């Protein structure tokens, strides 16, 4: 981002952001200068949205022990190795930290679940979860990592739902990161010219294009020629 431009947007944002804060919490003394230095502000969000993000970034949810335990847990869910990067390589725990503040309904389940893990580990192995051996950790996970999808989640044990919550967010956090998208192999989000499904893919899935349908579709070699029609609406360019 161009520094001059970013300063301009920050200044604009600070005034409105300050107003928004004072509007929401009458009497709250929030120095405008503090908001003005917010590095998370971007022009593609509104001032109010920027302020909300900055507020969440200023809060802290996981304490050091919880963050360390989460790191161990998320790396068991998506471990690193010769072929793949780990959840912590993709900074999954900071993402979950943000989401816990963004969707506060998760907080009790996350925090309570981490306490459950330590209690279980202390009871069975005499040590908290993060310090247990990988074998011991996995033996705990084996008891909570599987579920019957035909049983509604409201009827599944708490610790199973806790693990599903962490697994879901580990998966999302990882596969929405740069390394996760690369691993998945998603090829989009860049300018291109769509000209149909490749033949080998059609063959693999046992479908084909009908010639009559294709005849109606865009001829990509003429896409830059300005459209003209006859009076009946037939494209003639």
């Amino acid at each position, binding site marked *: 981002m161009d520094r001059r431009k970013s300063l301009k*947007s920050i200044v604009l944002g600070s005034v409105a952001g300050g107003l928004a804060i004072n*509007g929401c919490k009458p009497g709250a003394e929030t120095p405008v200068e503090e908001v003005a230095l917010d590095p998370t502000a971007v*022009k593609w969000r509104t001032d*109010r949205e920027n302020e909300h993000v900055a507020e*969440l*970034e200023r809060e802290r949810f996981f304490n050091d022990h919880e963050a360390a335990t989460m790191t161990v847990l998320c790396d*068991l*869910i*998506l471990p690193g190795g010769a072929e*793949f990067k780990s959840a912590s390589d993709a900074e999954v725990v900071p*993402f979950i930290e*943000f*989401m816990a503040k*963004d*969707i506060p309904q998760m907080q009790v389940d996350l925090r309570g679940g981490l306490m459950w893990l330590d209690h279980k580990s202390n009871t069975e192995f005499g040590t908290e979860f993060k310090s247990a051996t990988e074998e011991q950790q996995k033996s705990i*996970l084996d008891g909570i*990592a599987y579920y*019957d*999808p035909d049983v509604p989640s409201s009827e599944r044990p708490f610790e199973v739902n806790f693990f*599903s919550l962490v*697994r*879901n967010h580990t*998966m*999302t956090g990882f*596969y*929405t*990161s*740069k390394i*996760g*998208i690369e691993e*998945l192999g*998603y*090829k*989009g*989000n*860049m*300018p*291109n*010219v*769509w000209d*149909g*499904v*490749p033949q080998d*893919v*059609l063959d693999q*899935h*046992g479908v*084909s*294009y009908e010639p009559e*349908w294709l005849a109606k*579709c*865009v*001829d990509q070699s*003429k*896409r*830059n020629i*300005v*459209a003209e029609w006859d009076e009946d*609406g037939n*494209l003639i360019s």
Partner: protein
Amino acid sequence: MQIIENSTVYDAIIVGSGAGGGMATKVLADAGLKVAVVEAGPFFDPADPEQKTQLRWPYESPRRGASTVRPFGDFDSAYGGWEIEGEPYTHKDGTKFDWFRSHMLGGRTNHWGRISLRFGPDDFKHKSIDGHGDDWPISYDDVKPYYDKVDKMIGVFGTKENIHNNPDGFFLPPPKPRLHELFYIKGARKTGVPVYPSRMSMLTKRINNDRGVCFYCGQCSRACQVYADFSAGTCLIFPAQKSRGQVDLFVNCVVREVTVDDEGKATGVSYINKEDRKEYKLKGKVVVLGASACSTARILMNSKSPQHPNGLGNSSDIVGKYLHDSTGADRMAFVPDLMNRKVSYNEDGVGGMHVYSPWWGDNSKLDFPRGYHIEIWGGMGMPSYGFGFNVNEFNKFFGTKVGGYGDVLRSDAKKYYGALVGLSGRGESIAYKDNYCEIDPNTVDEWGIPVLRFHYKWSEYEHKQAIHMHDTFEQILTNLGGEVLGSKPGKEADYGLHTPGRIIHEVGTTRMGDDPRTSVTNKYQQLHDADNVFVVDAGPFVSQADKNCTWTILALSWRASEYIVDQLKKQNL
């Protein structure tokens, strides 16, 4: 606090910069008029590299695009949503209506689905066909020339199919179907449901030298940096600013009311500038309201004067009545034949579907009077918040364990990537007088403006239509080889119908008609009660059709704006 008056007298003051207001701005400015455009939100230009969200990656959002703040996710280009802090609305008698507002230049056109369907001949005269609702005072033939002009100016792809109630237009060529759409074609045909290339306003081919051509990122909901899809800001307001007229943009300005003189004619508008929270007045010969059907009704009902004691244009007490939204219901299926996909290619395509099914049924043989069209979704989309949730739940179809941890989750994510197909029905509801918005006498927003209170109920016709949708979806999804997910929603779930307002096709609040006792505007969208006030959003719609409303808003706004130019020339206003 004194109200600050601007001494300029505009030829026209246009309230709102979406499809209706944008088109009025373009037509009036092209005619050389001096217009003021008053928009409640900020300036927005998706060509601004810092303001655009197009081509951003999920990791540029700390919530990875989750919908915590914007209902369609962080990268969706509609500022606002169902709830806006400081701008509430209320409900009556325990009924529900969810009102989506987007305050920004271009309004909701920055994120809409670009499904651009003309209404057909039957859609303007449905009462004559089935006895429900009312006929429009105009016919398809009155609107056709304007649909043609909109097609040529803005651009819409599609194909000539010669279907009676889905008229052809001046189409750009459509893109080829994606893989999951080939499956849909197969399943729909087996079910007896016809399928055609969709009709959407993206430029698959150059339409002029000011706008770019689609580069197939699939992100039209984020607004296009090369202006290759239709948004009112990029395709109407910006060109209007380059025309021979004068266009003064007033952004972050919320219109409170239309002001009138002793004879009850409009003199302009009063608005609140959000930046200094002060009230201002603008003067104009004509006031053109395009604030959205409900916002326009609100402005009119709040414009009370000795000359218009029930609100402007409301001597009939019809303003706010006959509010209706499209019906909507959705279903999806897991398709085993779409498993283990090659990720060797980019199938983002245009934003949304490449194929669709217009209404095919004969309502005289069904237990509900109006139809719906089917929209199709699926494919290997860009991951965002929610990707990988319940990653291997489809294992249940193969009798293998669900859940787990470790590298198996990676292979499961890839195995099932792109193996979902979803269908959405979007249908016509009947317009009822008892579905309405009115002013809530007990509540104001943070700008001190009285807010809307909604009263809305679906009728048995919408319920029966929704049942038909789910029956049809199950057949199509089964016939394309899918395992239908979820169960058929029953009475307790309103048969799967979305809450009214959720499809964001609010229309009907200032309906047009020849009789001033039963309508708000005449067939030129001119208030019966004040001839220099026009409504160019979807308020004047008498009925919705099983189409989307934007293309008709554009055509009708063009038609009304030409009438305004003509009447100004004749000094009739």
